[in-house]
């Protein structure tokens, strides 16, 4: 099994999916359209899994899966799992998965992993009374975070807390996963293992090791936040300041406060079309979106009566050619509402 295989998890044998949408979700390059299709694919939870994934790496990987017969590609560039791909996906589903997928959307997990490595190294060296050592993590932000933290607390508190938290978290994990998580750390006279070495030692694939590391990093960080550990500020710092989500939430809030789209646009000094995009995003992401403020049940019925049952097949262009009077905004809102109902969200 190689790293490409993991992409199969994001495809199905029934629904034709665009790889580009999945790549944009994984790297968190989000537009209204990407979010809508993320909703349709029920893949919103993969937002931000691999923020640094290169487009060419992913696209070549998909192409390889097509060549290997795991995926079939249509002329419109959408892909589906083949029978072979389906059984491979089943195999993958028995392997490690990510237990806290939403955490990836809300946090910079790569940086959190570096932060944890630095905390462990600093605490380890401090526990042996060593102040001069080769720092393993070349990340200025992490280094500043730990310095700031140490202005408030001391090295002994750091050592005591990280050891305590690691023990309490890892005792609930399988010994193998716990070992993989710990083997990445360096400290006083302790050298880290590479992913390949962990794979060699455990008999797992490098892909499985990478997933376990991501999984335990996100869940351990989540554990620190939930417990409100003294170490939590160093994790909380890496919370995502997602401008898109923030603006969508703000626009919705203004709307709920009685402002019109035009007023929201004036207030934010943006175009009305931009406000509509924010509201569409909010409709996708927020649970209590006031759909009824935009269209009546009757209007919804009238519209859906003209469209196929499968929302994936809806086409605004075809609707327009039939002279149906509906704005794209309302058309898309209906599609979002119906999708939420379809998926029970």
């Amino acid at each position, binding site marked *: 099994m190689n790293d490409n295989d993991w992409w199969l998890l994001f495809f199905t044998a029934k629904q034709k999916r665009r790889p580009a949408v999945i790549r944009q979700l994984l790297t968190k390059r989000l537009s209204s359209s990407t979010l809508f299709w993320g909703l349709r694919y029920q893949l919103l939870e993969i937002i931000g899994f691999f923020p640094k994934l290169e487009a060419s790496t992913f696209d070549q990987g998909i192409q390889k899966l097509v060549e290997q017969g795991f995926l079939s590609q249509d002329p419109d560039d959408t892909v589906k799992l083949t029978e072979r791909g389906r059984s491979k996906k089943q195999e993958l589903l028995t392997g490690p998965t990510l237990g806290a997928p939403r955490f990836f959307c809300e946090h910079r997990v790569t940086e959190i992993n570096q932060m944890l490595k630095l905390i462990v190294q600093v605490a380890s060296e401090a526990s042996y009374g060593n102040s001069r050592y080769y720092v393993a993590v070349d990340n200025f932000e992490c280094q500043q975070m730990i310095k700031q933290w140490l202005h408030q607390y001391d090295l002994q508190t750091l050592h005591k807390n990280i050891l305590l938290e690691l023990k309490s978290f890892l005792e609930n994990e399988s010994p193998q996963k716990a070992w993989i998580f710990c083997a990445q750390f360096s400290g006083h006279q302790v050298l*880290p293992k*590479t992913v390949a070495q962990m794979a060699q030692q455990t008999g797992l694939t490098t892909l499985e090791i990478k997933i376990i590391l991501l999984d335990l990093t996100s869940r351990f960080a989540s554990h620190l936040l939930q417990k409100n550990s003294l170490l939590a500020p160093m994790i909380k710092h890496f919370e995502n300041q997602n401008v898109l989500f923030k603006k969508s939430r703000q626009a919705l809030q203004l709307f709920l406060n009685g402002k019109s789209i035009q007023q929201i646009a004036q207030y934010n000094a943006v175009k009305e079309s931009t406000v509509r995009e924010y509201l569409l995003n909010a409709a996708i992401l927020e649970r209590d979106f006031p759909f009824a403020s935009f269209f009546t049940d009757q209007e919804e019925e009238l519209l859906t009566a003209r469209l196929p049952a499968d929302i994936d097949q809806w086409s605004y262009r075809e609707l327009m050619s039939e002279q149906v009077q509906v704005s794209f905004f309302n058309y898309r809102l209906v599609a979002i509402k119906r999708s939420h109902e379809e998926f029970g969200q």
Partner: protein
Amino acid sequence: MVSEKELYAHLKQEFGFTRFKAGQKQVIQRLLAGGSTVAILPTGTGKSLCYQFVGTYTNQTVLIISPLLSLMQDQVEQLRLKGEKRVVALNSNLSYAAKKQILANLHQYLFIYLAPEMLNNPVVLAALTDIDLGLLVVDEAHCISAWGPDFRPDYLQLGKLRQKLGFPVTLALTATATKRVTSDMMRSLKLGRKVKVIRNSVDRPNIFLAVEKSADTQEKNQRLIQLIRSLPAPGLIYFSSKKQCDQICALLNAKSKLTVASYHAGLPAGDRYAVQQQFLGGQIDLICATSAFGMGINKPDIRYVIHYHLPENLESYLQEIGRAGRDGQQSLALILYSEQDRGLQQHLALSALPTNAELEILQNSPQLLEKSSQENQSAQLVWRYMQMGVSFPQMSAVFSQRRTEKLQALQQILAYVNTQGCRRKFILRYFDETKTPQHFRKCCQLANESFDYQQLFDLAKTKNEPNIFAGGNDYEQILKNLFKTD
């Protein structure tokens, strides 16, 4: 004028040494007297100490232009390890906020490492002109000539930078430079006539030089397996391709009892750190690497450096084999050559440079150029040159000249592979050295001579037992080792 006594006292106090290595004192004295210097000192002779000494002695900021992120990080950490906290690296790894924070406090740092690309940022330049700069260092200065025109055009702007910084005392450091490269460096840096060139011989007599020819890849792989089974570890094998680096690493792990790891720019930073530290700590016997590995690595007991592919040129070859035998013990530098390597190296040498046809397309379509520059190395180069105000006809001339130079460099390395004479003499003549030693028994393998490498190492006390992969799968044991508890 600083007295000898003061120099030695500072050396002892700051670095813990009682004597200088060849060339160091001369360079330091010259810099302390305010004279810009080009120092060509062989690998492993402590080049960094020259500027670290000057910085800590004068307590004035030293700005170091460094070519590689990994090298920069390594040098920052090495200085911190010595207890020097006033050190920072300004590079593309930093977030916007971090960069801003560093620039606002730049005067607090004694050693500032910088990628040449950062110098085009007016904010960075403004911050640098505001500090009391004692010394400008261009580390691995051969990159000006070797890399500048090909893919780091910002290297060619360093002279202008010196000018903007008011022509500070400058040290250009490298391990290898022919007279032509030295002139390139001096011209690019606008060093003028008063600059002093301090040059030590590139010769490393304890490194035996050899070339073996194979008919094809299969034969080469078989020979490589034989070699690593018999040669004393630790060793280093260089590749031109990341893919083959990984493949051969897997092959050698399977076919030998040695612990072999691969190292290249495609690995995540955490893995690169782990491999480097395990190798330094003696937990890895053999590294399969691309040229990304090596600069700044100071492991004294590397017994052999094998080139699986043909090196790009003699300069980089000497840099890479210079990682062997820094402890002065007998070591080996071997090129495994097969005919198809020539084509691969030629392709690599030329593919990064845009052809005239490509230049024409890019010139006619600025939009395409901007888009391609995000994805394609040669378009990126054109884009950068354009930003620097270089016209398309000028670019065409530069690239054409570079193609010729690269092909000449390839001819040189092929001439080295095929030479009938003493390989050491060949290299020394290439680097314009007039004093060349007589061929000796452990000097080099002459053309078509079969040589039993075991003879080399009979007398040398070296480690050849493989590493046993240490450690069980017990996470609690790792925690116990990591944290000392009372």
